[in-house]
Each structure stands twice: as structure tokens, then as C-alpha cells.
């Protein structure tokens, strides 16, 4: 085979490829905008939005020994379409005090944990924002790092620390401070620790982002005008960091309400959290419709904070 022939072939292949790329290119150019928006949009509509409608629908169904374990809402009878809406699941949630109590207790646990995360996270964020810029990145890295190691395993680590033969109790017993082990595991206290610990980075990062943008000249101005540090903090820093506080708090509060792993591993049998209830209804009782109704109630509770969070981010 001659060399010129090879060269000719090569040129043809290349030209073919060129034609192809321009064809793809012109199609892409014409519909680029549409494609870039439509592909993720369609994915999210199908796999994020549509599922909520399905849950909503099934929350009006009735549990049954079937596969899947619930009855359909619609049926044909004598040529008539019958739609059966079973409100029993919601009625059941209202009648059994367990659900209302667990709802209140979830919100309370999430709120208290959020406050503690804020109390611990704020000084840390402020400290990082005030450090020299070389050290700042290392400190930020130290905040993010635990997030990269398994959440499940970090919660598990607290079992070893808090249980009656755990690190804390062993140390306190050895030092003679206590005579018998403190009961910390399987209490709400352990759940608070678990939530604050896991979500602390989510509190620190938005706070840091906010505080690091704060103009130091403002603080100098306040000091020059004779404000004490505490006054400067309360009247300048705190109000200006409010968006960061809101964003961080929502990032902790919203997922904490529906938390399952932390109460399941660290909480006791009397730790009532809605996420745990949903899990039990679904996996242990196999009552999908009631679990769906619980999910809808949980969703209704987080909608308001969710909107608030979006606005803080916006």
C-alpha cells in the first residue's frame, strides 16, 4: 500500500470526523441552552419531584398483604371508575399520641442541637475568619475533613466513648471522680451530642463565609467610637452575620428533624424521633401507607424552614 494512499485515507477519515463534529456542534449550538437546562431538569422532575406525588398518593392508600403491600386507589366497577381515598392513615396519626409526641420531640431535639451547634460553631467560625490567611485554609480544611470520613462510623465512634464501659466512664472511674458509670448512651443526651457533632461543619462553613466578608474597618470604627468588645459584637458583628446564622442553622435544623441513624444508634427506646418512627413503620411493620403519611407530615414541617433556607442562600 502506497504512502500517498495512506495519507489520502487519513485525510478522508479526518474530514469525516470534522463533518461529524460540526454536525454535532451545530445541533448542540442550536439546542445548547435547551439541552443544558432540560437534561438535569427532567432528571429532577422524575426522580425528585414526582416521588413526592407518589408518596402523597400512597399516603391515601390502605395497607394490605400484597406486593406492593398497599391497595390501589382506583378501581373499575360496572364501568365506573371508583377512587377510594383512605384518610385513615392521617386519622391514625392524629389519634395515636405517639406520633404527635415524636413530632414535637423531633423538633425540640433538632432545635436544641441547632442552638448548641451555633454556640460551638460561632466562636470557631469567628476564630478562623480572624486568623492570618495562611493559617485560615488549614483551619478550614480541619473543619471539612471529618465530613469526608464516614458519617456512620463517626456516630459509631460515640458508642465507644459514651457507653458505660466507654472512654469517658473508664477515665472518670480511674480518676476516682465517680463511683459507678454514668448512663450516657441510649439517652437523649447522646442524641444531642451525635447531632451537634455530625452537623457542626454545616454550621461553621456558612458562618465563616459570612464572617470572613465582614469589613474589619467596621470593627475599628466601632472601637474608635468607644464601643466595648461586647457592644461591638452585639451591635455590629452579630446583626451583620445574621444571614450566615440563618443558613447554618437551617443546614443543621432541617436534616436533624428527620434524622434516623443518630437516634437509632445513640438514642434509647424512649427517644422519640419522627425519622425513627417512619423507619419502623416501613421496615418493621411493613405499613407503607402509614409510613407515607408520616413522610408527608415531616415534609410539611420542613417546608417553611426550607423556604427560609433558600432565601438565606439566594
Amino acid at each position, binding site marked *: 500500500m502506497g504512502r500517498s494512499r495512506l495519507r489520502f485515507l487519513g485525510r478522508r477519515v479526518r474530514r469525516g470526523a470534522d463533518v461529524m463534529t460540526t454536525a454535532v456542534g451545530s445541533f448542540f*449550538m442550536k439546542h445548547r*441552552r435547551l439541552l*443544558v*437546562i432540560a*437534561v*438535569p*431538569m427532567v*432528571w*429532577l*422532575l422524575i*426522580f*425528585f*419531584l*414526582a*416521588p413526592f406525588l*407518589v*408518596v402523597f398518593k400512597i399516603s391515601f392508600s390502605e395497607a394490605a398483604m400484597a406486593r406492593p403491600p398497599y391497595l390501589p386507589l382506583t378501581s373499575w366497577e360496572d364501568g365506573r371508575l371508583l377512587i377510594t381515598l383512605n384518610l385513615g392513615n392521617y386519622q391514625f396519626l392524629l389519634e395515636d399520641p405517639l406520633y404527635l409526641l415524636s413530632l414535637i420531640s423531633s423538633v425540640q431535639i433538632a432545635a436544641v442541637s441547632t442552638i448548641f451547634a451555633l454556640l*460551638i460553631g460561632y*466562636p*470557631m467560625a469567628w*476564630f478562623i475568619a480572624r486568623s492570618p*490567611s495562611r493559617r485560615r485554609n488549614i483551619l478550614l*480544611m*480541619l473543619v471539612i*475533613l*471529618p465530613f*469526608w*470520613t464516614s458519617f*456512620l*462510623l463517626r456516630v*459509631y*465512634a*460515640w*458508642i*465507644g*466513648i459514651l457507653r458505660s*464501659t*466507654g472512654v469517658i466512664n*473508664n477515665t472518670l472511674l480511674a480518676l476516682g471522680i465517680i463511683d459507678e458509670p454514668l448512663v450516657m448512651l441510649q439517652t437523649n443526651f447522646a442524641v444531642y451530642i451525635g447531632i451537634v*457533632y455530625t452537623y*457542626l461543619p454545616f454550621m461553621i462553613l456558612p458562618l465563616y463565609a459570612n464572617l470572613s466578608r465582614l469589613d474589619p474597618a467596621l470593627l475599628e470604627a466601632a472601637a474608635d467610637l468607644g464601643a466595648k*468588645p461586647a457592644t461591638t459584637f452585639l451591635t455590629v458583628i452579630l446583626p451583620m452575620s445574621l444571614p450566615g446564622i440563618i443558613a447554618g442553622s437551617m*443546614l443543621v435544623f*432541617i*436534616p436533624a*428533624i428527620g434524622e*434516623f441513624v443518630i437516634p*437509632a444508634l445513640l438514642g434509647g427506646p424512649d427517644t422519640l424521633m419522627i*425519622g425513627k418512627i*417512619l*423507619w419502623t413503620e*416501613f421496615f418493621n411493620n411493613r405499613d407503607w401507607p402509614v*409510613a*407515607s403519611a408520616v*413522610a408527608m407530615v*415531616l415534609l410539611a414541617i*420542613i417546608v417553611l424552614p*426550607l423556604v427560609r*433556607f*433558600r432565601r438565606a442562600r439566594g
Partner: protein
Amino acid sequence: MKRIPLLSIMALIGFIFLYAPILSLVVYSFNESRLVTVWSGFSTKWYGELLRDPQILGAAWISLKVAVASATISLVLGTMASLALVRYGRFRFRELFSGMTTAPLVMPDVITGISLLLLFVTMEALFGWPAGRGLLTIIIAHTTFCMAYVAVVVETRLINVDRSVEEAAADLGAKPLRIFFDVTLPSIAPALVSGWLLAFTLSLDDLVIASFVAGPGSTTLPMLIFSKVRLGVSPDVNALATILIGLVAIGIAISAFVMTRNGRSSETDA
């Protein structure tokens, strides 16, 4: 300035709080005793036991496959979403679109899990797809919540990209696709890497969503760990944790090394 020492002490306590549990996991993974928190001598036997456990290795392999697939798909989808949000100004349903890309960040896992499972069941009844539940359904579920994280990471970077380089390329006659691959993509590359890694980690870590949408043959590593841990502390879980922490540490060391080598010229963006 007597406030600074107090602040440093508070920050130090915070950092100790963050790292003490991780440290205790590592230390007790080398403990000989089965009673995890009673120290009875140095031993690496739990590591041996771990590596001989076919159940754990199988689950780890499943988790790895799921994490690679969902991180890759969510990187593509998340990047598209952030491009749409940052570059395309106003479009129809923009509010809905941006809402759907931020909501998964805070959505409780139990809601995501049950809603996706019910969707899969309904879809199977209607169209026969996806047939049963397994790797595919876990990958779809993980992609959906991971792409929100990718979108946030890439969005932050995309906002800071200097558009004049792209404009210069356009003035010199480069086609949009070429500009995207030769100019835009390299300038957001660090965000793409960290977005992929973040998605990979989140997928590898997820217990709740996977529990809902997994099938009988697709037990992931967190599902296996959870079932072990529920029965009490077990030292081989500590060993597993230490290996995972070690891998993360190595990954971070490598990326820090690469970043300091590449980052000297572009120190400005933090």
C-alpha cells in the same frame, strides 16, 4: 485584646470535639480485646479478620461500584445544572429548577428514601422499569441527591470564573463547544474534581436511602456496618473505619500536594 485567648480556647475545644471520636476509633482498632473499649494490648488481628470476611469485601465492592457510577453521573448532571443557573440568566421554571437543585441538600434521608422507593415500585408497575431493585436503583437515588452537592460546588467556582478569556476565545473565532472544552472546563476543573470526590464520598457513606431502594442482592457497606453495629460494638468495624480514614487521609494529602503545585500561580481563589 484579652478576648483572643478565650476565643482560641473555645476554638481548640471545638477542634478536639471534632477529632477525639475519630482518634478513638483508630486507637481501639489496634486493641486485642473483643471488648472494644478495654485496652488489653496492641494487635492487628481485627485487620486480618476484616480482610478474610467475604461479606464485608462483597459489600465494599458493591458500594465502590455504586459510588463511582453515581459520582460520575451526578458530576455531569450537576455541572449542567450549575451552568444553567449561572450562565443562562432567566428561563422558564428557573425558580422550580433552582429549588430542586438546593432542596436535596437538606432533605431528610428518610423522605428521599421512601419517596424514591415508592416511585420505583410505581414505575415498575406501570412500565416494567426498573425491573426489581438493586444496583441500578441505588445509583439513580444516589445520583439524585449527589448532583445537588456537585451543583453547589461547581456553581461557586463558575461564578468566579473570569469570562473575558471566553470572550477572547470567541472573538478569535472559537466555536462555543470548543470554548467550553478548552477554556471553561479547565478553569472549573478543581471544582469538578472536588465535586466528584464529594459525590463519591456521600454515596459511599449513605445508609438510609440505600436501605430503602436496595434489593436483596445489593447490600452496601454502610448497610452491613449498620447491621453489625446495631448488635453492639465490634472491633472489626473499628479496623474498617481506620482503613477508610487512612484512605481519605492519603487522598487529601495527594490533593493538597497537587493543589500546592498547581496553585502557586492562582493563589487568589480560596
